[in-house]
């Protein structure tokens, strides 16, 4: 049996030979080159160059470079052509695409790697600042979508900056700020608290309130945030908690940097809120050394401390300072409003109004200017003697003209309605005029409150219906109007009342509003059922109202007691009666009743 099999040419070398080939490549190339040169020199020496004339030599000298260049180019391409017909040449030609891509990608990688980190950081910081500034600009006429895009851009830029410079606290602070603004702008019901928590956690990590140190600007930001929170909540315990937190943050900054103007300024404002005027004054006086802009706050403090002389002096200084600022930048709305406030402090209402008028001309009509203008007119009105009714009415009229929806002005008007002097007639006239002119829902609502208080249900109904036409899904209005229909005399309109309150509850559930607010709507429907003697349905609604937050409301409890009694639920009725007795005792002890809210309609 033969061994058979294929016979191949013996393969030379292996890995060692390959390495050797590449190592000896330069020396071999040099050797081959010198050999070629030697052969050329030998050939030149052996060639017999004929004698030629001078003219020919000159012509040849001139023409020679062109001829040589042509030969060279022709030779080059001819060489390539000849080379391409060889196997190696073909390999090279076919390999060129990969070589080109390889070299290009490596070159690109080199360029990319050589990008300086510092330049990137600067670029991302600038872009982030620009986007954040644009998004949070006051008076910025941009849509919510654009603002959201700008804020997410700012977030991204700051996050990249954090990635490039991981320990940079400024980047982290800016990122937290942008995240906070972005979440605030997003306005997703139910998620705001969560999202803000994320941004706040980031900020709290930068400036922990329970340990020294931390990033100064984050402390200031948190203090400012807590002060705003304290201003927004109505719970005194929460207010105290927020103000305490703000104070701790500001103190942390001042321990690290006792001359930090902003922290002194914020702390003074905090003490102003808590009426610690002495402390506020001392901090403002420190802040004054570094920033003359605090004179306005100083004037307010002296005014509160009943030191009119000091107050006026500071107000004068503040006026001069703010005016100078405004002269430099007439578009600065914040300074303009502040200047008007300073003028008011100096009782110079005319100047205040002039300042605002100038602002209106420049801005072409700003809501903030009109509101401030109306407020100043109302303040000026109160400066008039109480018997100068015509003068007061004139100011009121002007305030309503300047700011057609000014709630305060309407309140004054409805207040004058309650008085029994000739002003009532004038007020009524102005009200009719305002309604004819602006048909303001606010005014209708105030009037409905006024008429309900006076027991003039028909007029109240008229105004509530007007509001409902303007705001068809206003739940408080629907609720109040349903009550009015149910209380109508001589015949209550239960059908319309029930339709309205059912719609109100339906919208409330769809809008996922807070159970504490839904409690009022269930209460109203429960009361209507009670009036209709539909005890079981009434009990169900009233139980919901109690469960959702009206457990301290005596009206609701009494209605529920009545339902249980009518339904024969003795044990429940007894329990309800016991709770009501306790509540009455408690109220008698405290000397105060339940606190109605603005959404609660007056009950019959």
């Amino acid at each position, binding site marked *: 049996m033969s061994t058979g099999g294929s016979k191949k040419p013996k393969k030379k070398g292996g890995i060692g030979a390959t390495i050797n080939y590449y190592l000896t490549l330069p020396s071999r190339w040099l050797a081959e080159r010198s050999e070629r040169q030697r052969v050329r020199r030998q050939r030149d020496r052996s060639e017999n160059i004929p004698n030629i004339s001078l003219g020919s030599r000159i012509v040849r000298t001139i023409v020679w470079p062109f001829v040589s260049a042509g030969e060279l180019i022709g030779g080059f391409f001819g060489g390539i052509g000849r080379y391409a017909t060889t196997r190696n040449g073909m*390999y090279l030609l076919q390999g060129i695409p990969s070589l080109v891509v390889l070299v290009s990608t490596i070159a690109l990688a080199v360029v990319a790697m050589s990008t300086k980190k510092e330049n990137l950081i600067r670029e991302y910081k600038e872009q982030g600042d620009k986007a954040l500034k644009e998004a949070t600009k006051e008076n910025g006429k941009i849509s919510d979508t654009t603002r959201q895009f700008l804020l997410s*851009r700012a977030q991204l830029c700051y996050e990249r900056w954090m990635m490039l410079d991981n320990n940079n606290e400024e980047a982290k602070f800016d990122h937290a700020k942008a995240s906070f603004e972005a979440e605030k702008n997003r306005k997703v019901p139910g998620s705001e608290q969560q999202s803000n*928590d994320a941004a706040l956690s980031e900020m709290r990590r930068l400036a922990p309130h329970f340990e020294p140190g931390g990033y100064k600007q984050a402390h200031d930001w948190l203090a400012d945030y807590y002060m705003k929170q304290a201003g927004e909540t109505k719970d005194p315990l929460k207010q105290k908690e927020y103000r305490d937190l703000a104070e701790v943050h500001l103190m942390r900054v001042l321990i690290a940097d006792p001359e930090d103007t902003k922290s002194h300024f914020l702390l003074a404002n905090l003490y102003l809120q808590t009426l610690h005027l002495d402390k506020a004054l001392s901090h403002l006086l420190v802040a004054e050394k570094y920033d003359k802009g605090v004179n306005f706050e100083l004037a307010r403090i002296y005014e509160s401390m009943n030191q009119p002389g000091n107050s006026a002096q500071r107000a004068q200084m503040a006026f001069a300072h703010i005016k100078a600022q405004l002269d430099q930048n007439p578009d600065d709305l914040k300074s303009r409003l502040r200047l008007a406030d300073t003028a008011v402090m100096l009782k110079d209402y005319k100047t205040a109004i002039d300042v605002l008028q100038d602002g209106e001309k420049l801005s072409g009509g700003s809501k903030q200017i009109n509101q401030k203008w109306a407020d100043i007119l109302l303040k000026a009105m109160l400066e008039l003697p109480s018997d100068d009714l015509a003068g007061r009415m004139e100011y009121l009229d002007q305030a309503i003209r300047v700011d057609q929806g000014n709630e305060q002005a309407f309140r004054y008007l409805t207040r004058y309605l309650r008085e029994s002097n000739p002003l009532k007639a004038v007020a009524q006239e102005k009200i009719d005029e305002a309604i004819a002119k602006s048909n303001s829902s606010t005014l209708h609502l105030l009037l409905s409150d006024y008429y309900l208080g006076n027991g003039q249900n028909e007029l109240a109904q008229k105004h509530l219906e007007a509001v409902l036409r303007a705001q068809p899904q206003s739940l408080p209005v629907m609720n109040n109007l349903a009550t009015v229909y149910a209380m109508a005399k001589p015949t209550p309109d239960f059908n319309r009342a029930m339709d309205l309150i059912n719609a109100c509850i339906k919208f409330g559930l769809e809008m996922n509003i807070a159970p504490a607010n839904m409690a009022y709507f269930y209460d109203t429907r429960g009361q209507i059922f009670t009036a209709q003697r539909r005890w079981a349905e009434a009990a169900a609604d009233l139980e919901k109202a109690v469960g959702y937050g009206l457990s301290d409301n005596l009206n609701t409890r009494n209605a529920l007691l009545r339902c249980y009694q009518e339904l024969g639920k003795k044990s429940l009725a007894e329990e309800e009666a016991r709770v009501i007795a306790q509540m009455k005792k408690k109220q008698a002890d405290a000397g105060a009743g339940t606190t109605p809210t603005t959404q609660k309609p007056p009950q019959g």
Partner: protein
Amino acid sequence: MATHLTTTTQTSLVTTDDETQTPVPATTNYLAVIIVGSILLVAHLPMLFLLSKDLWSREHYQFFVFIPFAAAFLMWEGIGRLKGPVQAGNQIICYVLILISALMLVVSSLITSGTLAAVSALLTLATIIYGIGGWTLFKELLPGWVIFFLAVPPPFRIDDLLITTLQRWVAMGNGKILDVIGVEHLIQGTTVKLPGRQLMVEEACSGIHSLFSSLFVALLLSLYNRRGVIHTLLLMFITVYWVLVGNLARVLAIVIADVKFGYSGLAEGLPHSMLSIMIFLFIIPLILSTDRLLLFMSPWSKRSLYVAPSKEKPWHTSILELVPDLNQSWLSSWAVGLLFALIACLQFWIVGRDTLTLTRPNIEIAEIGVNGLPDKLLGSTRLGYEKEDRTFNHINGEHSQMWSYAFNNKYKGNVSLDYTFTGWHELTICYVNNGWTVTNKTIDGTVEEGKIKDPYLRVEMVMPHTGQHGYLLFCMFDENGKRIDPPKGREEKLFRQRLDNIYAKITGKEIAGGMTIPTYQVQLFIPTYGELTEAEKTLAAQFYRDIEGRIQGLVAKYKKASPGANGEEPTQTDSTNILGVRP
């Protein structure tokens, strides 16, 4: 030595045209060879079938269907190079090799290892080739045999690790290039974030699919042209580079289309598939060109190692003339036939059930709805619910049902039921590819008799640049509700867990997981800015155990009414009960 199935054994000398006398078999008993060969094939088939299903479930391995054709082509081409009949290989070596192969096959089926089964099959194939034609034949058929190795998945899912790591490299490179061209961006893992949107989220944990297909092309080219080892290795190495460049171009094209032209469609769906195909078609010419460039740079480029097949009339008229007397080879051995017949029975006993279906089923569960999980649980309040459907074999599972909770009424926690996967799904890879860094990973569960029962993974992560913390708890279970053991560590996984499986198989217990069994994943993820306290972590674990039990219950309940083996539609009553909705 084994007994042979020899009935008539004669050889004769055949005279060739060139007067060379070559002995070839004349009266081989092909029936015996066919019987033993069939037994060998049948013994290997169940595990190979399971392996095929497993490979098909991995998108980057789906090219494996081309491998048998490529191998057949290369082998046919190799046979054409033979100059004369071949001589059988050493019988002792053959028996040793086939015994090793048999052992590997048994072990592979007991521990359900596709890798080992594939190696066993390749060893059997090598033994057959060597047994028939010795080294001469084996050398000629080597390219066809070698290319089969591309269908052998590496153990411990190293392939997943490789392709996802490469994808992270691509993302990093992409970030550098976007810096050069001035596009504001942020690279988190493999995700590209642009102002107001994110790209490449879908495939954050999918890796680079074209890597293995491109390597297949490069290897096939090298083997067909009989390039040297260095040339082949260099070509494959550069191919990896081309794959990276191609993917870089793909991601860059998506970002530029989005940023410069406002077209975000390239990131998903058909346009994205078309783009990927175009990139792959761009890589193939580059591989061909690189092969030529390497030839140019080769010191032996001036001569060819390729020997063109002779245009003369072949020396043999039938392929059977190539082989010697098979009656003398191990292929007609009764003992081998019997051994592999036993192994075949074992195979069908162990994995027979899994081979009934061609592909893993895509499990459908009706929309459980927001009320599937309680609105208040252990101090946490439910916020919302969402269902998401994806394509078959999607890396994140085909479906997800997600509930969000205000965990401890403080942090937002996301609970998710994701399905369907095949075996274990390493969820941490997805999070790492989204920019998270794992700081701690432990296996937790109920400890009974020193063993962890119903294990789940607790993973602590951080987002380094933002300082955000992530707390992840997840587990996998199969359609019978059996828990899939998480890989504890390579050694433990290989020995302890699989030995347990062998024991369970011998004692007739059901085994969770396996190569192609559909699985579900339940996860709880809580991202926070400050790290969770120990008390909060314990609460999270309690919360997770509670939720996980409820979800398993929901899945199991549905299964009873699902269109499964009996093909019945779920009834309204069943759905109502599952969903917890009032009738």
